[in-house]
């Protein structure tokens, strides 16, 4: 059953005085099944960030609908959007977005505290997650004391602790070195193996090669998609590279 269904989503940006219209997304449709690990790839300006913002209910589409568990998030009332987002979606950002004023523990607790969860429950939830992400020892440290990889793992923990339907990751490896990138991607695979649905936006071939399915976006449309099937990460990497080359050259010809 599809957790997330994106149907004919369109997004048009209008310049301030209405003189120019820019079509960021033309006609985007796809769906994500429960437990899937989907990567969305595209070059800068292809519209992938716009798409993610719409999926995260941070932005509203000009047309089309986004169904999460059958409910259209584009019609959720403004006043409910924050709690809707908090309860059903987890976010991982390129620049971590941790709050300097909170310790690691408090950063992870943040969405739960906002949701009014009991102290006991929060403590029960954080333990396994921190252990799985290898940050149990770091819980009382502050963001300024952490490396990039540790910060991103904290952010992942924060995304997971609400037990979201979908984790949305926006270029999660963008600010990490190669070692931290490998670790993080391994963790995403593990999380996904435990049944967590993950949707990742990236332009890193390596990051995408860990996914179960890769969607390619170009000029605001879903241009192509690849399924992993039985391929290893390395083989998928090769396929993605080939596809990107094809997209790039076909763009030149067209």
């Amino acid at each position, binding site marked *: 059953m599809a957790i997330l269904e994106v149907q004919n989503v369109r997004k048009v940006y209008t310049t301030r005085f209405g003189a120019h219209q820019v079509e960021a997304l033309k006609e985007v449709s796809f769906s994500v099944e429960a437990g899937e690990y989907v990567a969305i790839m595209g070059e800068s300006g292809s519209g992938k960030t716009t798409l993610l913002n719409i999926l995260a209910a941070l932005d509203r589409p000009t047309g089309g609908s986004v169904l999460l568990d059958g409910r259209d998030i584009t019609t959720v009332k403004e006043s409910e959007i*924050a*709690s809707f987002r908090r309860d059903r979606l987890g*976010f991982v950002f390129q620049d971590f*977005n941790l*709050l300097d004023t909170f310790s690691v523990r408090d950063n992870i607790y943040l969405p739960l505290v906002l949701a009014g969860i009991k*102290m006991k429950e929060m403590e029960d939830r954080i333990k396994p997650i921190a252990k799985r992400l290898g940050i149990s020892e770091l819980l009382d440290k502050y963001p300024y004391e952490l490396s990039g990889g540790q910060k991103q793992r904290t952010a992942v923990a924060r995304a997971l602790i609400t037990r979201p339907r979908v984790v949305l990751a926006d270029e999660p490896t963008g600010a990490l070195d190669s070692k931290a990138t490998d670790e993080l991607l391994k963790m995403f695979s593990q999380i996904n193996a435990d049944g967590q649905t993950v949707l990742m936006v990236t332009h890193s071939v390596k990051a995408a090669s860990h996914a179960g399915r890769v969607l390619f976006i170009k000029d605001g449309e879903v241009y192509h998609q690849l399924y992993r099937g039985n391929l290893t990460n390395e083989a998928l990497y090769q396929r993605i590279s080939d596809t990107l080359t094809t997209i790039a050259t076909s763009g030149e010809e067209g």
Partner: protein
Amino acid sequence: MKGIYYPKLAWLGIKRNKQVYVPFMLTGIGMVMMYYIITYLEGSDALYQMSGGRQLQATLGFGVNVMAFFCVIFLFYTNSFLIRRRKKEFGLYNILGMGKWNIARMLVWESLIMYVIAVLGGLLSGVLFSKLAELAATRMIGLAPTYQFSVSLKAVRRVLFLFAVVFGLILINNLRSIHVSKPVELLRSENVGEKPPKVNWVLALLGVLVLGAAYVLAVSIKEPLQAMVWFFVAVMMVIAATYALFISGSVALCKLLQKNKKFYYRTNHFVSVSSMSYRMKRNGAGLASICILSTMVLVTISSTACLYFGKEDGMRIRYPEDIVLKTYTLDENAVGALQALAWNVVSDAGEQIEGEVFYRYLDVIAERREDFIATNDITLGFSMGTTSTQIDFYIVPLEDYNRLTGEQEELAPGEVLLGVSRGSDYSYDTITLEDWEPLRVKRVVRTLPPNGADNADIFASYWLFVPDFERYAAFYQGERLESLPVSTYSYYGFNLSADDKAQRLIVSAICERIGRAQIEDEAFPHVWVESIAEEREGFYGMYGSLFFLGILLGIVFVFATVLIIYYKQISEGYEDRAKFEIMQKVGMTEREIKKSVNSQVLTVFFLPLITAGIHTAFAFPLIQKIMLLFNAVNISLLIWTTIACFLIFGFFYIIVYRMTSRAYLKLVS
């Protein structure tokens, strides 16, 4: 082309950062204006020609220096916000190929532009408002206003000079801070990851203790004179404690709240408490400054206002009757002659004498040691370690007491009535003088004979009403007079139905007649003449000028407070913007964010005001006692002026809050 490049760049820099530069310019203009007005008044001819005006000018002469001091402090303070904001821009210029020398040239031009704007704007408004201030000043000290308009070149020169120095210093400081920094640091200087605030428990605890001690001190002091001396100690303690508490105490409190998990992990408290500890770490010193400035405004204005509005009462205490003639004799014949003289003068002037007061007394400077009044081996004056035991000791015949009060008191030999001045107490049954038998105190009375000189000095006074006055007079006038500061007086005071002008004429006529009488008759005593009408101008001048200076300083302090608040809000706004974006992404609703922001801003904003209120409340007993020394005995007046000041100040404060929080919210959302 090249010549105009730097001024243009400087001007663009100012324009681009107008959000921080406009308040800076306004500060500059305001400071120049206030400084010009004060220097103008201090040298104003119109004021100099009036005696109350000269009093005001003397007070303002002191005010000019205070003003100059605060100009430097405030401009430096506002500049520190400016330069912090602009460092990034300078870093960018540097990376784009501008050398530090070029940036320095631009800064010089900027300072020059700011100087010109501040001085021109300030002088213009200063000249406009100086006449208004002069009118207000003359009105307040009770003089007739003059309506000619003038500009004081001397004041202009002083303004130009002072502010050239201040802006020069600021420029040098800015150049130094640019010079020592590296371009990459300049670029990033605005957002370096911040460490969580460390709690200095010792300092926090010390703050609580010192503040508590200061409060206890303030409420426990009984004697006015002690109050005067300890007031400054208490002020120092409160200032130190306020800084300690705002800097460490607040962070400590946040940490304690964070430790209480039940409290901390709640939607309403979570974000607020943790950000508050950072906010307080950054702003503790600034908020403490606001708090202390506010307290100063409140204390200064409320006490000077109390003096000013209570000036007629104060005068009546110093001058209980319109005219007082004091002779240094107990000879009733001499006093009778003097009385006749006064009657003649008054009736010649066609006026009436109303309410005469007459009594004789001995004035002994003594020291009270429990129930013993010592006149030998006493330490005169007052120092901080000792309690003030020096007293004014008066001895008055019982018959004079009965006449004054209309009572029919009778005393046996060895019995006395004891009168005790305000603020003192006497709880013994007997009182001992010299090596005599102890005297039995029949009653302690509170109605004392009117005596302005006694009211005016700072020592507590004790009045002994005795049935056998001659014995005391003989003793103190005879064998002891040589070695002791004992004086004998006959006090004769009366009121007149005439106005001040007529009263002044009467007084000079009386003085002239006395002079003549003294030439004609060598036995005619020396007379001390006091007239309320003659003193009124000087009195009003003094209290009026104190109040006027209080208001001027109050305006400056309010100005400073407003400014600190504004910059605080703006700089916080920039810092908070990023934070709130994150919170929104993590799932905080806009309403929750607004609520949290509001509660934090409110706390940061009103904490100083509330603390200032508490400080003032605790300072009140001290101030009230000090006011006694200035003959302001009207407690309810002091209470009302204090409350009124607090309300007016709070009103301005809230207006500023409204204005700045709008600017803040615009930055954040």
